[in-house]
């Protein structure tokens, strides 16, 4: 394909992906990889490299907006990043051993899981919980706005283990693993929902940067693909975040979930066809 075409197609596609990603809260990585693999018929290894770059860009962009709200728990984030970064390193090396069709297959199933989980988001309040021993040792408990309410972090070991898996998946598939991270923070460790999402976003950038460094040295990150993707995603998610307060997200979320299921099935179908 001609360079002009590649850049234009990728920019427009990523613009769309970033826009939908920030509206649905699922991030762009899950759509970028199928977009490049299915849309441009590019080898999935390149797609993963480009997607990691997009993930870092969205995470950095969103942090700037989130920080004003003051929800991020930096200690929890940093503590769990020891798990996600080691997971990411392992993930990259595991990914190297896997053939392209296996990667597409795993990607398809993860996408399917994330799509389905987007239909069942329950907002639970985690208040009046007992203090956890490990959480106290690592000073994980904190307060959150608006009333400086105190929250106690629970089930640290299980949360830590899930974070390792999230990091590994991020390294293997080039996604931010935001869904899994929020699952660990919100459901398992029982942080308030807003704290979970912002802390997860804080961690996503660092996890993706760990994988991206290795991918760069392996030759997976091609600027011809990564540059338009990173531009498109940033611009798209910027407008998505602007529009977010003005629309009803519930219907959009289910629409987006359906779209992701279709893409997931296509990824699985493609991998079975070539494997």
């Amino acid at each position, binding site marked *: 394909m001609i360079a002009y075409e590649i850049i234009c197609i990728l920019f427009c596609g990523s613009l769309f992906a970033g826009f939908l990603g920030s509206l649905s809260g699922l991030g762009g990585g899950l759509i970028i990889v199928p977009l490049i693999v299915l849309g441009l018929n*590019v080898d999935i290894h390149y797609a993963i490299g480009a997607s990691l770059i997009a993930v870092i860009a969205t995470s*950095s962009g969103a*942090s700037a907006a989130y920080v004003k709200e003051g929800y*991020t728990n930096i200690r929890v984030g940093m503590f769990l990043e020891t798990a996600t970064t080691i997971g990411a390193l392992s993930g990259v090396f595991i990914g190297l051993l896997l053939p392209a069709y296996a990667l597409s297959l795993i990607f398809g199933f993860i996408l399917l899981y994330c799509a389905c989980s987007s239909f069942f988001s329950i907002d639970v309040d985690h208040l009046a919980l007992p203090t956890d021993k490990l959480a106290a040792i690592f000073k994980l408990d904190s307060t959150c706005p608006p009333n400086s309410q105190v929250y106690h972090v629970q089930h640290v070991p299980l949360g830590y283990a899930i974070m390792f898996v999230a990091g590994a998946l991020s390294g293997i598939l080039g996604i931010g693993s935001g869904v899994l991270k929020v699952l660990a923070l919100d459901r398992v460790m029982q942080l308030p929902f807003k704290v979970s999402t912002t802390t997860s976003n804080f961690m996503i950038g*660092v996890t993706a940067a760990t*994988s991206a460094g290795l991918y760069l040295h392996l*030759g997976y990150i091609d600027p011809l693909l990564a540059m338009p993707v990173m531009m498109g995603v940033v611009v798209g998610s910027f407008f998505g975040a602007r529009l977010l307060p003005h629309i009803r997200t519930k219907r959009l979320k289910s629409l987006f979930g359906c779209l992701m299921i279709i893409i997931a099935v296509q990824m699985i179908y493609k991998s079975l066809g070539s494997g």
Partner: protein
Amino acid sequence: MDDEMRYGEIFLSKVLKYGLILSLLIAFLGGVLFLWQHGNQSYDFHVFKGDLHQLANFEDIANGILHYRGFAIMQLGILFLIATPVARVAACVFIFALQRDYMYVGIAGFVLMILFYSLFWRTF
């Protein structure tokens, strides 16, 4: 202490914001230059070539930039983008040190070490 943390957080978000803007600008300039130089060239990404493709290490990128190659300048922007979360973790180490929270200096320092390992893999 919470105030310090809050101040630190705002500082951290600025690190990310300007890091992002800078890397986008560099990558954009590189992209324009690249299109001007190789816009009509044809590319095939169907089969992964890995290391055969250049620009997988810092030396190649630096060489390319010295020769005003758009490709290398785009890659520099991407390198800057990868470096922004690293800068953020480094800033965290610093903030924890200011708070005399040495356990977290250790934890953040460990994360920083892993990031350096990956960023400088096979470089030295």
